[in-house]
């Protein structure tokens, strides 16, 4: 076994666990309305699934799956989605971030779900980005 290589059991178990961890993270984001959870927690769980992949398969495995530019763009996309929802409310004639103006039923609940998704995207991308920068620094 070469120095940078992991045992096949660790590698396989980590790779098998990753989709379940990611699914649980999505569940936590989506179900934050009626149980403990939300964007911050779900984002951290999805980010830690990538960290698990890095621990199991070596960091090159993870780097093949996303580009750095896309990671930075995703970090900004979450903040822009959040601020953009506020601007949408402004255009519909209400105050900034006043979701009651959205033209759907249960508007405030739907607005909160969008906010949680935006927060989740930002937290996921930010934690992966920090982890990537710390690991690849020579």
């Amino acid at each position, binding site marked *: 076994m070469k120095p940078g290589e992991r045992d096949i059991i660790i590698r396989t178990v980590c790779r098998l666990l990753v989709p379940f961890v990611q699914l649980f993270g999505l569940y936590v984001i989506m179900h934050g309305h*009626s*149980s*403990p959870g*939300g964007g*911050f927690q779900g984002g*951290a769980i999805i980010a830690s699934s990538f960290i698990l992949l890095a621990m199991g398969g070596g960091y090159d495995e993870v780097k093949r799956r996303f580009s750095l530019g896309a990671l930075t763009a995703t970090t900004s996309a979450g903040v822009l989605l959040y601020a953009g929802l506020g601007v949408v409310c402004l255009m519909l004639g209400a105050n900034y971030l006043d979701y009651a103006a959205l033209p759907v039923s249960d508007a405030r609940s739907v607005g909160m779900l969008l906010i949680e998704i935006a927060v989740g995207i930002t*937290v996921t991308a*930010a*934690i992966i980005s*920090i982890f990537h*920068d*710390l690991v690849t*620094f020579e």
Partner: protein
Amino acid sequence: MAGLADLIGQFNNVTYVVLMMIGFYAMTGKRNLVKKLVGMNIFQWSIILFVVSLSAKRDATIPIVLEGNNAGALPALEAAQYVNPLPQVLMLTAIVVGVAITGVALALLLRIYKRYGTLEEDQLLERIRLTG
């Protein structure tokens, strides 16, 4: 029994001060920069402990509305039944911001180690003086 209840009520307040003293001691007294960062994290969590302690209430349940006991009608909610959600919200965001702060501090540590080759404060000061 009033004396005992008062004493129990002050546990959290005293413990947050003790944890804060430990963190403050690590930040001022230890010379290793990673130790200082560990102290900073303990300090931060002691403040979070203090604020979350303000939200606790005796004989109250978690801040999620109990549904389904009478279908259709909205349950009448009493403030004394649920713990205070406001300090929890503020501290929820503070924890996640703490990770971002720790990340920036660790990045600075890596840069310092690359440039000076040490993380001990006294050796670091000496090398800074030597190289100018």
